[in-house]
């Protein structure tokens, strides 16, 4: 029997992505290459002005700060979440489910509410500082790191560690050769889940940063407000490039690694 093609099932997704993602993204890119209109909006004339602004020192410093902030938040949540996930995975099933639920619970409350909460919790000295913003971002995005790690630690269960020790591995070697390699892919996907949204985050830097912490997200918002759409669009493109390039790189690397291991078989 001939197998029927199921490719058409992807049509809605493709249409959706074209209309609602690629279209707007192309528009943003096009705006960044247009001239500024005095009353907001753009004039349809090619101009490099916005990009010249977008690669000046001020903008690049903000881009750098954003990257540093996102990387620090990712690292911090990894450091907090890794041992936490290891402990959680050892708990009895019921307790673990309850704790994982309570960890993900903040995700169902409004981000705005949580951020206002943090504004009250944070000592005054921390408001408007980069570390303060980093702390709130870390707490906010921790579940995205924790949940994949808990799953991975469940896979790297205690019997595997016992087996490793039974076969002669000291606890440290067992961790190095068994637990770490099994949990590493989850740490990587957790890192992506934290890094990508944090580098585009607007709300938390805005409220916790008190207007004193400039990242790309706040920059884009600000310049759309200041009616320099081409510059704001150029900054948004920066952001997209920062997020997309590592992702594309990792995809290529992954598919190459897979073909390698396939051909080794």
């Amino acid at each position, binding site marked *: 029997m001939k197998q029927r093609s199921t490719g058409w099932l992807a049509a809605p997704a493709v249409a959706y992505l074209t209309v609602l993602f690629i279209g707007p993204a192309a528009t943003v890119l096009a705006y960044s290459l247009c001239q500024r209109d005095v009353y907001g909006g753009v004039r349809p004339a090619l101009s490099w002005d916005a990009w010249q602004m977008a690669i000046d020192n001020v903008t690049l410093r903000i881009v750098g700060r954003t990257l540093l902030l996102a990387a620090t938040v990712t690292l911090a949540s990894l450091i907090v979440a890794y041992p936490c996930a290891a402990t959680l995975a050892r708990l009895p099933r019921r307790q673990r489910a309850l704790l994982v639920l309570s960890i993900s619970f903040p995700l169902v409350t409004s981000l705005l509410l949580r951020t206002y909460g943090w504004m009250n919790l944070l000592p005054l000295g921390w408001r408007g500082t980069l570390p303060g913003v980093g702390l709130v971002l870390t707490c906010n995005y921790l579940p995205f790191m924790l949940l994949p790690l808990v799953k991975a630690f469940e896979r790297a269960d205690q019997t595997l560690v016992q087996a490793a020790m039974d076969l002669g591995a000291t606890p440290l070697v067992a961790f190095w*050769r068994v637990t770490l390699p099994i949990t590493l892919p989850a740490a990587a996907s957790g890192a992506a889940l934290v890094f990508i949204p944090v580098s585009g985050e607007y709300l938390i830097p805005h409220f916790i940063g008190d207007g004193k912490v400039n990242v790309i997200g706040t920059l884009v918002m600000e310049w759309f407000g200041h009616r320099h759409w081409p510059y704001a669009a150029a900054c948004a493109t920066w952001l997209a490039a920062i997020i997309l390039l590592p992702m594309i790189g990792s995809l290529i690397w992954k598919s190459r690694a897979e073909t390698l291991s396939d051909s080794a078989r």
Partner: protein
Amino acid sequence: MVLDDINLSVARGEIVVIVGPSGCGKSTLLKIVSGIETADRGQVLLSGRDCTALPAYRRPVHTVFQNYALFPHLDVTANVAFPLNVAGVPRAAGERLVHEALGWVKLQAHARRRVDSLSGGERQRVALARALVDSPHCVLLDEPLSALDPHLRAETLELLQGIQKRLETTFLFITHDREEALRLGHRIGVLNGGRLEQVGPPQEMYEAPRTAFVASFLGKINWIVGECVHSGGSRVFVVEGQSVPGTSSNGIAAGKVQLGIRPEDVLIDTDGWLAAQVIARRFLGNCVVLELQLASGAVIISDCREPLPDALPGQHVRIRWAADAAHLFPANGTIST
């Protein structure tokens, strides 16, 4: 207390099978030997060396786990090479040993496969190769066949026996399956409620069980309640109002006793001691299984080698057994069948 008063020694190159119902402490015993768990009291000696205080990774024993516990991120070769790698065996020597071990379990063709692409039986063999690759003093096998289907189980059992014979590795094997135990063990130990009830060669265990539990665990058995009467220096056993012969009654006290008679030892004979009525008959090809009801209402099973065309349901027959076929125990112990 999970285990109590365990005294077991396993000779070099021997297969000792510990068998018992689930929850009897088998796994705990194995974990104490491997070092994953520690006993509150007592000693573990391996090749004469006291290993009680040694952590698992310093003991020269490896375990084949029930769920195999293969490392999912490593391929077959890397799994088998694991104990060599952590011990720092040079690469070339290690590769040779791994190749050899994969040969024992007939897995050379799958050397580079991912373990999650293997079938249950193949995973089992990877686990076995991994436990044998660096020739440990003793290999502990924790119900290694229980997850396999019956056909594969018999095949793997033979493979195990073949490898063990060739390498002369010491095996401590635990299972809840009495047939596995009888087939594989040079000696069997029956564990019940944390106590080793008896240790010995399979045939001796089957033919001369020391406790009612051992008797009923190692094979089907009929229990008949009776009485032991001391009359004039000799002992007489009375069941169903009849006195019957009984040996192996070493030191059994007067009073209620239970006689265990295996189905294959129940003989239909016109000169039999007890009257019984056939209530069901099943023909199984190599034997006829009869369900017999005694006068007291007790039902016993008989596996007859002869066709016995007359023993039809409703018929009255008489039964007996060879004098040494009755296993006698005091009746105060719990009878489990």
